[in-house]
């Protein structure tokens, strides 16, 4: 009966209660949303590369190397010369090595030159291999294998022509040497989805008539002649390395880092990822703190709303007292009302979160490659919701204690 009366009392003040519930709901949705993005980003980053023991690139920072080689974020400042690459590949510890050549683009997507070994050795999400959903791999010099998102966004099918642009944001196209979509990689949820993969030789081929990043005017080597040329590259951007035995990782890493011919850097992807988390962690904490403050603000708003309602409810409190309610019952009533508002806010907030996820999921996926899974609330989320309700009950104690004291002092005297 008390619960029914508390609900009735809230319904009677639908507007102010509704605003309070909405404020709580929005703050809860924001908080949970931030958590979702945070955990989603971590998961998708962590899922992107597995099974690679070392990543080798020109000497820069471990995080930078990880970002440009695996996540296609940022650019390499230097390349690794083909001689150095061969030296590393010939090391006895090396089981497999996959070169990566970046720098060109197709529309908004990056083009990556590599060898067929990439499809063999690249692993994501705990050891899953790439799967060519349609068509075949890199067989011909001008074959391109595209990620699922490239195909979806640009509406490409196997057999369609592709023209690679020079650089990442230029208007110069390698239109003299068009590619053909040979295969489409099934969706992985990794940057591969947004990559156009061609052979290392093809990268070399389209730059035959180029020197120092500019096309030699008037020179166009016919495709037939290019096919006859030696297309061994002079440099690659980075390389993914697998070793024979995990025991050898650190030895090989030290060897590469101390390589005398050229300043190189070898990193363990997991370690670099940890470093990245440390950098991102500060921002994450700040984001979480801000969204938690928004929840606190909403609860303070609720507290203010209860406080301001106390005066007009003194008559009601006097009725409760006259009917035999203890002051503690009145305190309990107010705390119950606050908990109900918070619970309604929490449920509504969860609803808003899911509605937001449904809308934002494809947008985030296409814009940032961030795939946020929509699933039942996790234990952590349930704990957050429970925490909000408990915090609301605690926050309401202050006005409730005031009501307690008022009801003791007023007795049946209140006349309005």
């Amino acid at each position, binding site marked *: *009966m*008390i619960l*029914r*009366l508390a609900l*009735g*009392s809230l*319904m*009677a003040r639908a507007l102010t209660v509704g605003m309070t519930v909405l404020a709580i709901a929005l703050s809860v949705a924001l908080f949970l949303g931030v958590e979702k993005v945070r955990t989603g980003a971590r998961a998708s980053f962590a899922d992107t590369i597995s099974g690679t023991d070392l990543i080798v690139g020109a000497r820069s920072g471990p995080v930078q190397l990880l970002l440009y080689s695996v996540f296609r974020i940022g650019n390499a400042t230097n390349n690794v010369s083909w001689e150095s690459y061969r030296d590393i590949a010939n090391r006895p510890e090396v089981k497999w090595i996959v070169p990566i050549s970046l720098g060109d683009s197709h529309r908004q997507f990056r083009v990556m030159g590599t060898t067929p070994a990439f499809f063999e050795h690249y692993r994501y999400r705990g050891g899953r291999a790439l799967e060519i959903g349609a068509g075949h791999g890199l067989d011909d010099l001008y074959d391109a294998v595209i990620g699922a998102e490239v195909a979806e966004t640009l509406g490409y099918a196997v057999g369609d022509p592709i023209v690679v642009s020079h650089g990442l944001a230029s208007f110069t196209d390698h239109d003299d040497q068009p590619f053909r979509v040979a295969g489409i990689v099934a969706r992985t949820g990794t940057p591969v989805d947004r990559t156009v993969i061609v052979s290392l030789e093809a990268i070399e081929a389209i730059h035959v008539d180029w020197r120092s990043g500019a096309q030699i005017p008037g020179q166009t080597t016919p495709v037939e002649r290019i096919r006859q040329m030696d297309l061994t590259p002079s440099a690659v951007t980075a390389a993914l390395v697998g070793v024979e035995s995990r025991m050898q990782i650190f030895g090989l890493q030290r060897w590469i880092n101390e390589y005398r011919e050229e300043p190189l850097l070898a990193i363990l992807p997991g370690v670099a990822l940890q470093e990245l988390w440390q950098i991102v962690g500060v921002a994450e904490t700040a984001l979480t703190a801000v969204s938690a403050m928004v929840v606190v603000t909403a609860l303070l708003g609720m507290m203010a709303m209860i406080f301001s309602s106390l005066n007009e409810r003194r*008559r*009601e409190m*006097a*009725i*409760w*007292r*006259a*009917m*035999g*309610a*203890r*002051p*503690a*019952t009145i305190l309990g009533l107010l705390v119950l009302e606050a908990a109900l508002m918070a619970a309604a806010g929490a449920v509504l907030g969860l609803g808003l979160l899911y509605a937001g996820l449904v809308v934002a999921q494809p947008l985030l996926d296409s814009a940032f490659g961030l795939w946020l899974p929509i699933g039942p609330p996790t234990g952590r989320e349930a704990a957050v919701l429970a925490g909000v309700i408990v915090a609301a009950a605690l926050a309401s104690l202050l006005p409730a204690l005031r009501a307690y004291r008022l009801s003791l*002092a007023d*007795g*049946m*005297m209140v*006349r*309005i």
Partner: protein
Amino acid sequence: MDDPALTLTDVRFRWPGRASFGLSVPAFRMSRGETVLLLGESGSGKSTLLSLICGIVTADAGRVAVGGIDLATLRAGARDRFRAERIGVIFQQFNLLPYASVADNIRLPLRFAPERRKRAAADEAASLCAALGLPGGITGTTAGRLSVGQQQRVAVARALIGQPELIVADEPTSALDAATQDTFLSLLFDRIAAAGSSLLMVSHDERLGARFDRVVRLADIAQADRQAA
């Protein structure tokens, strides 16, 4: 059963934190089943007296006994329960929780009074409404939608449910027009007689006196003690 419905002996009371107003009642007594009209101007201490009788505040000295039980011997929680069990209260207006249904309003004191709840019949709320001339099916209506006259009758039903031995009414007719007042009082007296309860009604309206067993002027039994704060 020979205990009087209400006795006040050498009662002195001063509001805590509001030293400006005090009240002393040397002696006042009500028999069981008696109906008493207590006349007093506003500010004469009527509400303070009612708060004392209901055990919402306790006397600084002297004895307030309802049905032979000295309220001062009860702890705060027990006093609240005692009030719920033994006393029905009717205010002058705004008696009801406006957001609750008529039935919930009527049954509210039972929530705090297990014995009174046992005495009350399951359909007593509805039968009291009918006896008080309220339209059938009103029990599901939200109290805030009723007219003032209807609200006061619902308040009577709430005071009477489970037949408490003492009904305390604080100017219950002041918000009603003359015609409604008369009907209201007739119904109130009928129901109180049927329940066998005692009635202590506070008012400033002497014309009501004829219906009561006894009319007492507050000034004759109590001294208000007003000091400049």
